[in-house]
């Protein structure tokens, strides 16, 4: 295992998701996460280029893979904090293996820029994956100086981190536990959020806003009905949609949700005792002020409903939950999940 990673930040990290980048940089030192940014990386094409032309779309993505592989120098892990970037990089790597002719075409194109990439030579991983499985929950827990006790957090992953999960890196497609475990390690009160991998609307905010607003409504309303103080995401697009379009959504459905949406790295920074403003707090459009105010309040909230003793009645026993999958076995058979 190499101790440093190649970072593919993606376009949003430098604009709409600056809070994500700031907080990531802030926590990286504390947990000894060494990141080396790909020199002169380009946009991954998001979900747009794939819908126009196949080879150019994959060539666009693969330029980054080729640069990363050149720069790899001992490591083979590329970390992407943005879900769409993560998926695009992983997808290109996987499909070029599954369908070698695609790899040949892409390499023909890369050759025009003096580059080449051998599919399968890098491990493409999402930031959360690296934090949970490489850095480890124990390390993270050991760095917590200000547990987020009492903060009710809705863990929200969105779609493209746990799905399609070509390399079987996650505990489940629908109800993965990694983010919950991490937030638990920070001392937060993690709500059992049933829509944790439902869609935020993606680019629909631009194309068919009504479609998107319905999806945003479902998510915010579910988090709200679970009395979440705050919702945390692992993806710039999700944060943007849920945060920036929340008031639009409220208008459309005549609701008045005020659900702050922050990146999980921001919460990590808080738990590590860092200053909120160094973590990009304040950049969110729906302010997290009230939620932050809650941390540090002396008495914790009442015992969560989930831990209440089962009532003495004639109810029938429930099956035991499926034991969690062994942590992170790359390439593990789908059946074993």
């Amino acid at each position, binding site marked *: 295992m190499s101790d440093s990673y190649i970072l593919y930040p993606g376009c949003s990290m430098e604009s709409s998701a600056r809070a994500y980048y700031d907080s990531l940089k802030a926590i990286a030192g504390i947990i000894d996460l060494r990141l080396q940014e790909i020199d002169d990386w380009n946009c991954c094409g998001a979900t747009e280029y794939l819908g126009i032309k*196949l080879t150019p779309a994959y060539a666009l993505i693969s330029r980054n893979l080729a640069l990363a592989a050149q720069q790899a120098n001992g490591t083979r892990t590329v970390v992407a904090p943005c879900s769409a970037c993560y998926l695009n990089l992983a997808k290109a790597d996987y499909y070029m293996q599954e369908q070698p002719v695609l790899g040949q075409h892409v390499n023909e194109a890369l050759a025009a820029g003096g580059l080449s990439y051998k599919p399968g030579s890098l491990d493409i991983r999402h930031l959360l994956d690296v934090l949970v499985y490489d850095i480890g929950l124990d390390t993270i827990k050991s760095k917590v100086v200000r547990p987020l006790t009492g903060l009710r957090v809705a863990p929200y992953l969105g779609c493209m981190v746990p799905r399609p999960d070509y390399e079987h890196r996650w505990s489940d497609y629908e109800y993965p536990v990694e983010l919950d475990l991490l937030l638990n390690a920070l001392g937060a009160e993690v709500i059992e959020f049933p829509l944790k991998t439902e869609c935020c609307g*993606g680019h629909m905010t631009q194309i068919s806003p009504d479609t998107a607003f319905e999806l945003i409504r479902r998510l915010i309303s579910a988090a709200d009905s679970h009395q979440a103080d705050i919702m945390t995401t692992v993806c710039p697009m999700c944060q943007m949609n849920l945060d920036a379009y929340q008031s639009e959504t409220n208008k459309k459905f005549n609701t008045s949700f005020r659900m702050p949406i922050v990146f999980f790295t921001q919460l990590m920074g808080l738990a590590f005792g860092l200053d909120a403003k160094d973590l990009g707090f304040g950049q969110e*459009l729906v302010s997290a002020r009230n939620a932050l105010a809650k941390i540090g309040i002396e008495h914790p909230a009442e015992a969560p409903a989930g831990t209440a003793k089962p009532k003495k009645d004639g109810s029938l026993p429930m099956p035991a939950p499926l034991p969690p999958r062994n942590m992170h076995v790359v390439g593990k058979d789908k059946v074993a999940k």
Partner: protein
Amino acid sequence: MQNMEQERASAPPKQIEDLSLLGEVSHRTAGVSRLEMCIQCGTCGGSCPSEADMDHTPRMLFAMLRAGMRHAALMSNTPWICVSCYHCVVRCPQNVHIADVMYTLKGMAIEAKLYQDSTAPDFSQTFVDMVEEYGRSFEFGLATRHYLKHFPLRLPNMAPMGLGMLSKHRMNITPTRIKGIGQLKAILKRAKEVEATS
């Protein structure tokens, strides 16, 4: 006899069963699409979060591909409404690469200029144009250009949000250009040539 032929010639293209359609879509999809393995179970349509706004469920669209309904299939808004959430992909009992098939259909629709609403194709094209120009996406330029063209009436509603984003420095007003833009352009040019000949 002659009548029939005339009739056939004048019939709208969607009535011709184009049995090469399924194969073409499958061939043009990244990876191994497994499209021909669809058993029409409806897991995709059942899983879809944006199905309500689609003309056809994905399953139905696949049935149309199978039936060779080229025109109708490419005209369907379904691929454009797909949010790429991959719920259908991981649940599909036949492991069809549904989301990637949707990308293929978008590309084919653009190529054939068959779509009901140009919002989505334009958005994609605008995005791609900017990426090809700068090597990075440029949200501000994209959003203003796109909204101006397609949702001028919504702009007033969106203005506070845009201002918020600007005031919080979450949108750059000027685009960033990568150093290797020449290299990228060369790569994309060659990629388009490869695409055209494959």
